[in-house]
């Protein structure tokens, strides 16, 4: 565990010492600041559009930062030959794979939480009557439900957990650029079309090969849309149940395990 912890700390240092995080932070800050200053038709304190823009930006940047960090870990270790020095230490290949994944996730999560705090601050400032500890009821006049804020953040962290494991697992098979492209494309496709893939697979007008592919994608690829609670959060619907949160946590853990095992199996057989 100490070795995994050391690797994780290394990745957190890496993300905060490179420019990517700060570029994202400044862009988010500028856009949120500008968007929050807008008044439409002299009616102030509309806040949901700001939440929509803010959440979209921080979700997008967090995913990009996490995927690009996870995807470049193993290839850059090989290219820079730091891998040989590292694995010459008493570090098993599984610890290496796990450390790189957990580090990528923690680094992405740290970035996300910083963005999220800024977002909550800007939104709270803009909103009229933010409800503290508003547990359930929608539309009580408050713009923010803290329980939903927590649930949305928690589910997005699970989302990062799965995408980090996917990019990390792929990194033992693909180059950095191929991995980033494929991971991000899959992420966007599944988020956008994931729920509809089953109906594509059932349509007889579609060629059989596409039907099979749609079914395979539907049942075997992780459904990232499960972790997107923005609709509930922005529009102050009821929070999701604790049972659903537990199920989604288990779902995320299973997929992370699968991707990591795939990565470990490849690294275990690789001669460095």
């Amino acid at each position, binding site marked *: 565990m100490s070795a995994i912890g050391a690797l994780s700390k290394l990745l957190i*240092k890496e993300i905060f010492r490179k420019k990517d995080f700060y570029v994202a932070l400044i862009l988010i800050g500028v856009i949120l600041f500008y968007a929050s200053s807008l008044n439409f038709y002299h009616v102030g304190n509309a806040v949901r559009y700001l939440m929509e823009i803010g959440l979209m930006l921080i979700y997008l940047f967090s995913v990009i930062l996490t995927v690009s960090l996870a995807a470049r870990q193993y290839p850059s270790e090989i290219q820079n030959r730091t891998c040989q020095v590292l694995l*010459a230490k008493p570090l098993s290949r599984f*610890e290496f794979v796990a450390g790189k994944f957990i580090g990528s996730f923690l680094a992405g999560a740290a970035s996300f939480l910083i963005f999220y705090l800024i977002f909550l601050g800007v939104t709270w400032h803009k909103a009229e009557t933010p409800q503290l500890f508003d547990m359930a009821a929608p539309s009580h006049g408050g713009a923010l439900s803290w329980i939903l804020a927590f649930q949305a953040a928690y589910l997005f962290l699970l989302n990062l957990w799965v995408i980090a494991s996917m990019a990390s697992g792929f990194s033992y098979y693909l180059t950095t650029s191929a991995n980033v492209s494929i991971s991000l494309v899959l992420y966007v496709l599944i988020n956008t079309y994931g729920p509809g893939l089953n109906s594509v697979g059932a349509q007889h007008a579609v060629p059989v090969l596409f039907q099979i592919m749609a079914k395979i994608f539907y049942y075997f690829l992780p459904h990232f849309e499960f972790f997107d609670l923005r609709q509930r959060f922005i529009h102050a619907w009821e929070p999701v149940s604790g049972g659903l949160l537990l199920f989604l946590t288990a779902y995320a853990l299973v997929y992370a395990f699968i991707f990591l095992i795939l990565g470990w199996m490849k690294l275990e057989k690789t001669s460095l």
Partner: protein
Amino acid sequence: MDSVIEIKDLVVSYRKKRALDGLSLSVKRGEIFGFLGPNGAGKSTMIKTLLGLIHPDEGWVRLGGLSPLDPQARVRVGFLPEEANYYRFLSPVELLSFYGEIFRLPVSVLKNRIEKLLSLVGLTEVRNKPIHTFSKGMAQKASLAQALINNPETLILDEPTAGLDPLARMDLRKILTDLKEEGKTLFFSSHELSEVELLCDSIAIIKSGKIIKSGSLHEVLEGDKDQNLERFFLKTVKGSGL
């Protein structure tokens, strides 16, 4: 003296070409062992196999009595690579802390050891500067420090003096000699035959994946009228017919 490193009938292949072809040797505890050979002979492959980075096709390797594929075998081993490539955004202190944590060293022990090592290699003044600002020589010093972070019993070095100026080479020689006096086992590959002649107790000469000569320095040069390692090496490598 028991053997720290034992290799028997080792075969390693890359794309159907044998990089190591039935190689056998042993290194006793406390000795400095030089591993010589021309470019492409298999020296780096040997070192990587010794560290568990490459899976052998045939034969076996033992490092402190354990297979090098077992991480436990590397607990008391230090490795100095040929090129000092490290995480460029880290400072020497951070780099040594990182590797120290991999070795699960207690915090207080690690802190003291980092100070000692930085002083030993002469990097105390630049301890907090990122490595990407270092010259090649300074990076090599940081590399040596990380190889010693766990106070290893066995030190494996791949071309340790490559690219160093004469002063740096002299410093390194002194450090290696001091380590030998502490009872450490040193195994290194090198092209610098003068260094090997000065430091080593035993050597092995490898060509095309096979050991063509091995033994103590005295044994290897016995019978050679020049008693000069460089000339002996050239004669042996050229005339071996491999």
